[in-house]
């Protein structure tokens, strides 16, 4: 691995100052499960690596603040998958966190890192889109909040600006509860990247939110507010027509090795129906 300087700030302001000073020559390390692979293969060559795990303000404990569930930038997948509030209220996120990598990976990998890497296949992205989560960012000009949908641009590219550091991901607790589910398709059971990763949420007003990844340059969110998709009593053909319209923007790459575009699109439908059925069932069980 190419040499770099290692910095371990103990305050958000110090981390931001380092990131602002070094710009693209600095990389943040939280879990490191993606970054260290890229440091080793030379696809990123920072002069400075900024470790944010010793910043007390980035407390990894998941907490409720002002009607939001706050997941810090250093919170790892293992803790997200195990959190009772997330399992109950944001079930698709708990399910997604539980299938990222392996036990070893989930003990290190952070939710913030999964988002900042902006992989189209990021398993936690679809559920965060469905719940309309926000990313809290500290930067040279202070704090700002970015809806998760406005964070992703394309593979590896986000709307974060020079000097900005994600400090937390927040889930709204003041919305109507959703029944929700995460589904994904991998080449083998166990530890693999998704060929399709998808989350669905249905609330009592009949709004269905569907988000899917690994079928285009960034994960996408689509919504059906007609109530038809959420109602199993409606004619199958009507519901299928709506689902088809929600999937039209999927554009899987020809170049990806994991699965062909045809296979991904076929599985996107299958997983979409499965997640929808599970979400509807979970909503009914809550009521």
């Amino acid at each position, binding site marked *: 691995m190419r040499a770099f300087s290692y910095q371990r700030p103990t305050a958000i302001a110090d981390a931001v100052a380092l990131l602002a000073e070094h710009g693209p020559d600095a990389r943040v390390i939280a879990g490191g499960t993606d970054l260290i692979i890229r440091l080793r293969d030379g696809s990123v060559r920072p002069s400075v*690596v900024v470790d944010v795990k010793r910043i007390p303000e980035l407390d990894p404990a998941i907490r409720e603040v002002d009607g939001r569930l706050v997941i810090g930038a250093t919170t790892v997948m293992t803790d997200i998958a195990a959190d009772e509030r997330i399992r109950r209220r944001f079930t698709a996120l708990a399910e997604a966190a539980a299938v990222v990598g392996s036990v070893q990976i989930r003990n290190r990998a952070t939710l913030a890192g999964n988002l900042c890497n902006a992989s189209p296949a990021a398993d936690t992205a679809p559920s965060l889109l469905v719940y309309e989560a926000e990313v809290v960012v500290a930067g040279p000009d202070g704090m700002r909040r970015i809806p998760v949908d406005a964070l992703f641009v394309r593979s590896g590219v986000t709307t974060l600006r020079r000097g900005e550091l994600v400090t937390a991901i927040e889930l709204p607790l003041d919305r109507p509860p959703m029944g929700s589910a995460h589904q994904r398709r991998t080449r083998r059971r166990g530890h693999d990247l998704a060929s399709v990763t998808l989350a669905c949420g249905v609330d009592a007003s009949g709004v269905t939110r569907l988000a899917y990844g690994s079928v285009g340059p960034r994960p996408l969110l689509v919504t059906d507010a007609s109530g038809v998709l959420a109602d199993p009593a409606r004619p199958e053909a009507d519901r299928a027509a709506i689902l088809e319209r929600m999937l039209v923007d999927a554009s899987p790459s020809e170049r990806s090795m994991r699965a062909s575009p045809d296979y991904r699109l076929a599985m996107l439908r299958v997983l979409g129906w499965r997640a929808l059925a599970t979400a509807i069932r979970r909503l009914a069980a809550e009521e």
Partner: protein
Amino acid sequence: MTQLIPIEVTVNARPRSFEVAAHHTLLEVLRDDLALTGTKECCLVGECGACTVRLNDQIVDSCLVLAVEADGGTITTVEGLAGADGQLAPIQQAFLDYGATQCGFCIPGQLMAADDLLRRLPSPTVEQIQEGLAGNLCRCAGYEQITEAVQAVAEGGVAPSRTRAADAAASAGGARAGARTNAEGLDQ
């Protein structure tokens, strides 16, 4: 421009203070600086689990941790599983008894993952064993025997596949047969 950083860690119950290069992984430092070569280097991308160690009570792929990130931490490698007198841990003995160790290269990582699984889930189902060890690949495909070895050590576990254990005992002679009795004793 290698930056050297002093760190303090406890490795296999022994406190150590030394300098590490900022860009060296925990795996490199364990193997090359501390000569703890039980931890294996293999895929270097977090797929295979051969480099699994315990860091602050959680297993990690040591190829994906910078050594400096472990500063202040407590590390257990496969060398730390056996007792100080060399007595194998029950999970190590079970791997021998059930023929789970073939070429052996993945075994340090498999043992660390199995040990971790049993700490979290003392009586895992087969599915939980497979999930708990999903981050550890075995190219000899000894997965069935590895699963059986974990079941044998599990609390209230039923000795799986007596035939296989008996075969192993028969082919290995009396010493292995005695070990098999121990494994059965753990099941009660």
